[in-house]
């Protein structure tokens, strides 16, 4: 076994490839958090009063939470206390006040996205994918806006939506994740600086994939973005987000909120490839990824599907969830979470069945390597009125090496006797017998490990838009750096 172990350890001693820093002059506000900071952020964005009021309410609520030490402690993750005053809440690259087109974007930033494999010039882009690029606290550009506008689809930065479509923002903001929801969501509501906004009008099938690429660049800052996607009656949209950050010794906080709203017969597919800097092999540095994501299936026959591939971040804490209000609505959650070295992940989903004949599917694949700790936490709740509800949960863990851990906490609460629940769970190790079998057929150990892991994740990769499924597979092999310790 020893040479297997060594080879796995050597596997992809590849560095985190996205760890560079872009040299741009930044507009940063001083460290610390107080009401003035909230006002300053709001003023920088020339926000209407309702936004500032909302932020201030959130901030005041957060203050009480912080005083009562209400930061969530129930997750199976461990980190030193975060000093919320020792952090910058707004940093933006200096640019012309009003960007007319992508030509106005700082070439250094355009080069950054090119280096990340996300060229923003439309002619170079993946055909059929529109991108919103968020750099630190602000959106620096959104592509294919004109084409989308033809179909009536609004896809822009959150700041722009606040300016141009305040009525939509006001109608839907905080209706799925209220500012009182939890410590990190409350903090986000107070200080969020940008993010993406999508509105797909009645009966419109969005003509292309939408995608947001989040990049943290500035040091000592937190990133707090907020995404709101509304699919009106009969509309459908597929949205993908990606994220990376430079290599730094300090931990950086990323506390985002995503709200999805699907009205009658609408469908939203939301895919994430999360690749924030995970820290080094000794667990130094990395992003704290504390994210609240929730979707509401408000109308009949609506559907929300979450797919996530989580390979980055020092700590991941997120539970993309579905509230199935409309009758016959469908919620799905497909997840691959990989923890290597000293990464920790506590992730899963909540499926709340309220409407009749609502259905949900949960497929979670956790991979632990090195000293990684991987926790699945899921809740399926069938309310009293939810006659005929169904849930299928499959929850598998794969262990690579001896020092990692996998943990599973499924919570099931059924208040209607007609519910049908299925739960399958498994834990397996990449066995010496599997590796020997593949090597006996000529495959090198690292290729054998990659093959086993990709096979394990296949059910989830199938749900990703095709262009990204290939990327996700590659990312997984790179992230298996030093797998067995």
């Amino acid at each position, binding site marked *: *076994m*020893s*040479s*297997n172990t060594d080879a796995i350890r050597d596997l992809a001693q590849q560095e985190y490839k996205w760890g560079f820093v872009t040299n741009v002059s930044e507009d940063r506000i001083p460290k610390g958090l107080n009401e003035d900071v909230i006002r300053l952020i709001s003023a920088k964005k020339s926000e209407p009063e309702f936004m500032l009021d909302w932020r201030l309410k959130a901030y005041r609520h957060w203050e009480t939470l912080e005083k009562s030490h209400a930061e969530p402690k129930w997750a199976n993750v461990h980190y030193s206390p975060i000093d919320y005053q020792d952090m910058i809440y707004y940093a933006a690259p200096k640019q012309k006040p009003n960007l007319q087109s992508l030509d106005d974007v700082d070439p250094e930033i355009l080069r950054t996205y090119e280096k990340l494999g996300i060229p923003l010039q439309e002619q170079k882009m993946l055909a059929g994918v529109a991108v919103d690029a968020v750099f630190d606290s602000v959106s620096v550009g959104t592509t294919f806006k004109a084409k989308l506008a033809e179909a009536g689809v609004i896809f822009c930065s959150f700041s722009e939506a606040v300016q141009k479509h305040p009525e939509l923002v006001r109608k839907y903001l905080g209706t799925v994740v209220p500012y009182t929801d939890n410590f990190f969501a409350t903090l986000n509501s107070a200080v969020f600086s940008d993010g993406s906004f999508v509105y797909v009008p009645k009966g419109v099938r969005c003509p292309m994939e939408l995608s947001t690429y989040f990049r943290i660049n500035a040091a000592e800052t937190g990133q707090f973005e907020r995404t709101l996607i509304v699919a009106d009656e009969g509309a459908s949209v597929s949205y993908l987000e990606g994220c990376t950050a430079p290599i730094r010794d300090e931990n950086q906080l990323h506390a985002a909120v995503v709200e999805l709203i699907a009205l009658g017969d609408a469908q939203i597919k939301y895919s994430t490839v999360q690749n924030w800097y995970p820290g080094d092999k000794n667990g130094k540095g990395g992003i704290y990824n504390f994210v609240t994501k929730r979707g509401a299936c408000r109308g009949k026959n609506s559907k929300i599907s979450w797919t996530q591939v989580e390979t980055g971040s020092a700590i991941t804490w997120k539970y993309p969830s579905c509230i199935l209000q409309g009758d016959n609505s469908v919620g799905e959650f497909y997840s691959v979470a990989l923890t290597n070295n000293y990464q920790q992940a506590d992730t899963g989903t909540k499926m709340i069945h309220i409407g009749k004949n609502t259905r949900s599917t949960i497929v979670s694949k956790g991979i632990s390597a090195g000293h990684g700790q991987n926790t699945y936490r899921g809740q399926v709740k069938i309310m009293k009125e939810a006659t005929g509800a169904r849930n299928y949960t499959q929850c598998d863990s794969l262990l690579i090496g001896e020092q990692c851990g996998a943990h599973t906490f499924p919570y099931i609460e059924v208040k209607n006797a007609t519910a049908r629940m299925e739960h399958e769970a498994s834990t397996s190790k990449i*066995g*010496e*017998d*599997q590796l*020997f*079998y*593949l*090597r*006996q*057929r*000529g*495959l*090198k*150990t690292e*290729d054998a490990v990659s*093959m*086993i892991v*990709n*096979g*394990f*994740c*296949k*059910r989830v990769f199938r749900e990703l838009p095709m262009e990204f499924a290939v990327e996700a597979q590659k990312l997984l092999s790179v992230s298996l750096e030093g797998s067995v310790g």
Partner: protein
Amino acid sequence: MSLLDIKDLRVTVDDHEILKGLNLQLKPGEVHSIMGPNGSGKSTLAQVLARRETFTVTGGQVQFNGKDLLAMKPEEAACEGVFLAFQYPVEIPGIGNAYFLRSALNAIRKYRGQDEMDAMDFLPMLREKMKLLEMDEKYLNRSVNEGFSGGEKKRNEILQMAMLEPKLAILDETDSGLDIDALRIVAAGVNAMRSPDRAILVVTHYQRLLHYIVPDRVHVLVDGRIERSGGPELALQLEETGYAAIEAAARGASRG
């Protein structure tokens, strides 16, 4: 010259000596059978030749095609042309059979400095071999060995052997778990692989497989050593008498 030359091979598992000075030579074109009672070291021999690392070689040499086999990793031995048909083939969930086989074939071709084979060339070849083994096309895309019956797994092993075209094929108890029809199909697949530049080593407890795959030489392995060798008639004789007589003789010899 021998393709495989084993001299005084000694192997232990957890400090327990399994092979105690084993000698064996195979020339290209030959089919040899290793027979013996349970626990005599047959499977250990098969796996050591395929370079499984859970075994410790404590003595002896093994030359394969003029190279030191014991210095090779499993994937090197495979790329040099050693193939093991497993007694218990392993399942690889989520990986399609055809994809897996093409990856293996291309890994070997790459090692040998040949161009990788694309799906257009590969699939017709695979379909043809599957026909020979009377395997349904559905096995092309099903996950490797997952949900296969015992017989299907063994057929899949022979399919892999046919695709990878090894210089030395080792069949470890390939007959176990096969009904008579499957046995015949598997044997036909193996016989189709007989060729002047290939050697085949058939490891089996029972004689019945050797009705279909007739070996040039039969060796009886008892307590880690080859105690008797002969032509195919030796297998028939063992069917009559069992291993007891040879085991008793071996015990007598080691006492004396």
